[in-house]
């Protein structure tokens, strides 16, 4: 699809304001047309900053993985309440159409004024807001492949149940799920709107199991000019997979010919972990100890073996009291060199869920999202190493866990999430 075919959200706003809007492209809708007629072209696209732009929805891979990280995430996992596979397919079809429209900055479905007596197909709170680089990424949890829908033989071998790790403190109600949806945007309203409407479309077929909001991208596809900091105050994500590094993406992120399930070709596996940080304890720790725990300088982000953020992490460099980067430092244990050269694409966000009702401390941390081609070679061994000896474990707890097989991208209108899985 080359241009928007639905009513433009901004077009509607323009109409509502008496024609101070943008030109709604394409479309066969009364209101969109009325806007186009009443708005002089020179007033079109009053603001079209990159942050408000459109990330193409269709393509070889789903957007929201190799897409440069947006500012916000709203993640949601759903449990199917139906036992009818046809209802599941219809839900995924309806989600696909809605996602194509929302990511293009359009309203879902028909012109809301076309049927006065019917509830509008779009809930409307994003009306007037730009697309905001919204991406919606859908994945399938292991439970989708149980006996309910006859998909057992289609379960990829790589879609394993994540094993328990020593430092886990998992709340099952906050993890897992038949379907996982990651909505990322530069405007939290736009991201929430996507999840809210997915939940609405699912009513009667699936229910929300858990949801997590996140802010301030932590790493994502690395920007060589700027790496964000985590809530511990440290630069985080320096050695993440770089933009346009197709070699890295093909080697570590996209599922290729090695898969046992052809429907996953071009897809990826998402692991979600809600990592609570005990930031009060961290804040009370001396800076030298903090830097030893991480293995980097707090101010510059330079490894303890270098002077600048992007200096090589020299794991072998010795200091007066053992290695300069301590044996239990986080960057040592997470480094590809320590993990047989393996990398993962981290795409996490910070979260805070207010006060911990028990302790009164701030309930905050990292909502870790990572994409990879095989969790058995990537996330699981890396996390096994980290949970065994990472000095950071004193300050963090993993409170939720999820794994989702993210199918490849949609070819165009009429294609839908997982069509190859269900056919």
């Amino acid at each position, binding site marked *: 699809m080359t241009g928007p075919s*639905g009513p433009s959200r901004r077009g509607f706003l323009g109409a509502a304001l008496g024609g101070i809007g943008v030109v709604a492209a394409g479309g066969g809708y009364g209101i969109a047309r009325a806007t186009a007629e009443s708005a002089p072209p020179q007033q079109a696209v009053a603001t079209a900053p990159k942050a408000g732009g459109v990330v193409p929805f269709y393509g070889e891979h789903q957007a929201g993985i190799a897409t440069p990280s947006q500012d916000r995430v709203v993640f949601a996992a759903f449990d199917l309440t139906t036992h009818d596979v046809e209802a599941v397919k219809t839900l995924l079809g*309806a989600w696909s159409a809605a996602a194509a429209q929302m990511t293009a900055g359009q309203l879902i479905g028909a012109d809301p004024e076309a049927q006065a007596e019917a509830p509008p197909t779009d809930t409307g709170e994003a009306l007037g807001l730009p697309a905001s680089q919204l991406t919606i990424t859908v994945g399938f949890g292991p439970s989708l492949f149980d006996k309910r829908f006859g998909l057992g033989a289609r379960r990829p071998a790589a879609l394993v149940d994540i094993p328990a790790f020593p430092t886990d403190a998992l709340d099952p109600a906050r993890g897992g799920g038949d379907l996982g949806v990651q909505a990322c945007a530069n405007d939290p309203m736009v991201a929430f709107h996507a999840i809210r409407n997915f939940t609405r479309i699912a009513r*009667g077929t699936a229910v929300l199991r858990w949801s997590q909001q996140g802010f301030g991208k932590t790493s994502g596809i690395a920007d060589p000019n700027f790496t964000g900091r985590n809530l511990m105050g440290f630069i985080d994500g320096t050695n993440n997979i770089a933009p346009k590094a197709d070699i890295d993406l093909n080697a570590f992120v996209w599922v290729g010919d090695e898969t046992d399930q052809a429907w996953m070709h071009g897809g990826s596996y998402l692991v979600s972990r809600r990592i609570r940080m005990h930031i009060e304890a961290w804040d009370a720790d001396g800076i030298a100890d903090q830097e030893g725990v991480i293995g980097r300088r707090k101010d510059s982000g330079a490894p303890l073996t270098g002077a600048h953020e992007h200096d090589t992490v020299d794991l072998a460099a010795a200091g007066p009291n053992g290695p300069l980067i301590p044996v239990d430092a986080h960057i040592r244990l997470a480094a590809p060199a320590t993990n047989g050269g393996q990398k993962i694409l981290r795409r996490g966000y910070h979260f805070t869920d207010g006060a911990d009702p028990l302790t009164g401390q701030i309930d905050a941390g990292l909502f870790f999202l990572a994409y990879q081609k095989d969790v058995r070679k990537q996330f699981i061994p890396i996390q096994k190493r980290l949970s065994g000896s990472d000095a950071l474990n004193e300050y963090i707890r993993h409170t939720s866990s999820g794994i989702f097989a993210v199918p490849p991208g949609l070819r165009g209108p009429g294609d839908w999430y997982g069509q190859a899985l269900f056919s």
Partner: protein
Amino acid sequence: MPGESLVRHSARRTALRGVAAIGAAALVITTGAACSNSRTTARGGDPAAANQVGDLPPVLSHTVAVTVSSARGCQADHTTYAAGELLVSITNQDALGVSAVQLRNGAQLVGERADVPAGFTGSFAVTAPPGTYTLFCPGAAGAHVPIRIVGASMPAGSTLQALLDRAGAGYGKYVGTQAGNLVTAATALHTALAHGSTAAAKSAYARARSAYGRIATITEPFDDEINAHAGEESAADWNGFHRIEKGLFEQKVTTGLAGQATWLVEHARKLKSLAAKVPLGPDDLTHAAMDLLTGLFRSALLGEEEPYSHYDLLDVAANVAGAQQSFVSLQPALQRIDPMLTARLAGSFSSLVTLLHKYRCSWMPSGYDPFDQLTDAQVTGLSQAVQAVVEPLSMAASLVVS
């Protein structure tokens, strides 16, 4: 949801039959073309035979094949179809904004199929008398497609309008019966309180609530005092169900409550006479059902409807029963308009009722577990089951607007 699953399967079979019917229609068209050829041939031969063929009415299809696409919008395969049982078979190729197709006769909706997103097919059957109709594909470019249906007219009484009229009358009777039950139970409550019998009073209170909950949204416009909670009226003016509930279940006294029950009986009688006079259109039925269910989220499903007795599940069950009665009254009409949606609603109601049944409790006067003993997960499950009814019900509401 085994019930829903069964229904969905049968709907799928209908869709398969639809595919077969398209094949049959294609055959019919081919035959029609062959007929016109043979007519040309016949013209030179036997004039009687030519005359005979020429007198045959055009062969009209009973299947309306609708194709929706982003490029060409909403399209039907013909402009004229045969009256009677008609199958509307839909293929949504790639129109992202379209998920439903309707058949309308003027302002009246005679049939619909929802849940046909881009890349999917679906169908619905209607019984259509002759006339001028519009296929409506909300969200498509060129959303309105006029079609004609010709042939023999149908007997009066089987029209959709007749079914809708019958729905209103049927539900009106139900409201009257429940209002009568309310008066009977309120009177029993008065008798029990006057005799100081706590157990009999609790039982009568439960019966009165059960009747009231079924029709609350129909009677509410006439009397909202009867269901006032503490704080909604000044203490001196506070009467009705929950004033009695507080005395009986929290203060655990019957003294002085008989006077309150007298007030309740008077108001119940007044409601009964008013309810009998309310004209009920089909949209009143769907609105009443919607209000009964969505009201649960604000009160009974929070345990705030019966703060002293914790009989909230009784209210949930009563509201659900009232909403289901509204649906059952409309079902014959809805079944004609959108059998898929009707099946989904029936399935959702059935799942909800089955779930509620798990909380039946014989020793409670309310017949249900006390609300304060439910776990959070149980309340969530109930809320989700109610929500699963509300969503298709909100769609049904738009189908039966008079």
